[in-house]
């Protein structure tokens, strides 16, 4: 079973991973965007861990709702509302239970990913975070490690795609050949689940 502590560890692991990979994310964002994806997420997840420390939410749902609100209030850009909505809607779907099982979490995450698709208007194959998140949700039934692998492969698979949403879409065919920064950071978020469950 997954309790509030597990979800807190997930967010802490995600924050650490974003810190480690910030320069890489920014480098991916340079040729097709505006070179700030790493620093924006760093700022957001630092606010998430600070808020979790301060407010000590008691349920899995409350942890993710608080994390999502922090991202919306601190990240800006498109990533803020999109990542914020992902966590907030996943948290809302978890309800007020003190513990949830893997199946409940997988369903809630699917709700969160659907909300991101509605908000951003992106579909699989548009070279966005959706290309990492959808395969991850589909593989989650086989465990966190399988979801992490699926997310990572999904992110890598954006490289030959032409971006159809967000700033990279302005480049048209010139966006082909670049791994999407949002899909890459989404994979980091899914990989952090493995770290959180190892502890």
């Amino acid at each position, binding site marked *: 079973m997954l309790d509030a502590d597990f979800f807190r560890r997930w967010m802490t692991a995600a924050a650490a991973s974003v810190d480690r990979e910030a320069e890489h994310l920014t480098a991916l964002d340079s*040729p097709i965007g505006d070179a700030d994806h*790493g620093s*924006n997420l760093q700022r957001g997840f630092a606010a998430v861990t600070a808020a979790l420390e301060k407010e000590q939410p008691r349920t899995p749902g409350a942890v993710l709702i608080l994390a999502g609100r922090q991202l*919306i*209030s601190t990240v800006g*850009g498109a*990533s803020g509302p999109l990542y914020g909505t992902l966590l907030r809607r996943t948290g809302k779907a978890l309800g007020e239970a003190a513990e949830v099982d893997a199946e409940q979490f997988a369903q809630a995450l699917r709700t969160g990913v659907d909300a991101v698709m509605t908000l951003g208007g992106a579909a699989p194959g548009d070279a966005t975070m959706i290309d990492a998140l959808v395969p991850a949700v589909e593989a989650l039934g086989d465990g966190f490690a399988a979801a992490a692998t699926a997310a990572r492969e999904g992110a890598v698979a954006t490289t030959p795609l032409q971006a159809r949403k967000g700033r990279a879409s*302005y*480049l048209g065919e010139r966006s082909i050949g670049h791994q999407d920064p949002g899909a890459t950071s989404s994979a980091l978020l899914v990989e952090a689940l493995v770290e959180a469950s190892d502890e």
Partner: protein
Amino acid sequence: MKMLINVAETVVADALRGMAAAHPELIVDVENRVIVRRDAPVAGKVGLVSGGGSGHEPLHGGFVGPGMLSAACPGEVFTSPVPDQMVRAAAAVDSGAGVLFIVKNYTGDVLNFDMAAELAEDEGIQVAKVLVNDDVAVTDSLYTAGRRGTGATLFVEKIAGAAADEGQPLQRVEAIGRQVNENARSFGVALSAVTTPAKGSPTFDLPAGELELGIGIHGEPGRERRAMMTSGEIADFAVGAVLDDMSPRNPVLVLVNGMGATPLLELYGFNAEVQRVLAERGVAVARTLVGNYVTSLDMAGASVTLCQVDEEMLRLWDAPVSTPGLRWGM
């Protein structure tokens, strides 16, 4: 790349502190990232709120003041501000007559302003929105985020701002803002890439002897790269691209806008070429503005914006304005 900064993390806050010191006529809330007219809310007046990533100065904070914006929300460099800022700004400027959000068409700006509009309406503030999307370099199709908002933002903020200052109701101010956007088109070129403080090196590689056509204002590369052209050739290309997309029957406002690192000497020379092309194409010019208004940090280059105006729009353009970045008639 050398920059006149302390550390990258504080560039926006540092600039706001400096702006507060230079402009006592504005309330610059450094902590909450909101710049507001000191006399807001003005009784009976519609509030105009805009915002966007920092790095485009004087847009938007430099356009706060009588005759233009009521408040602006600066985000991190090239990053949309967050909904909390916009709600705070809306609450500060709403006199009960409602608030108009002026939003440049970028995914992040649109998402954050939409979230803010919902939250502000929950607080009982009436909100309308004008989306600025004037950049003809972007193919407007289902497969892109749509045309970007660039130089026309200045025209929308000035003309809608004048309408609001006259006491026109929210619906009218919104309508005239939309009318300005629908009649405006832009095209930009870059002679160098841009360097953000967070990255510290240019965002794309633009070799000497080449220029980038159809650039945006965030260091995103353009659609096409060519061997360097003369000012006259660039004017032919840029004005040509704009006129491929509009056929003005009325006179136009012309904005020859510097991207940040191109000297005024070059911009005025470029304007001479822009005016030549317009004359050749039979387009009448009502007013011309030359300078650095919608910039992209240290990028070298320029954009041309044309806005077709009727008598009412021209009257509102000529109306007095007093902001750090644009000032006349008062």
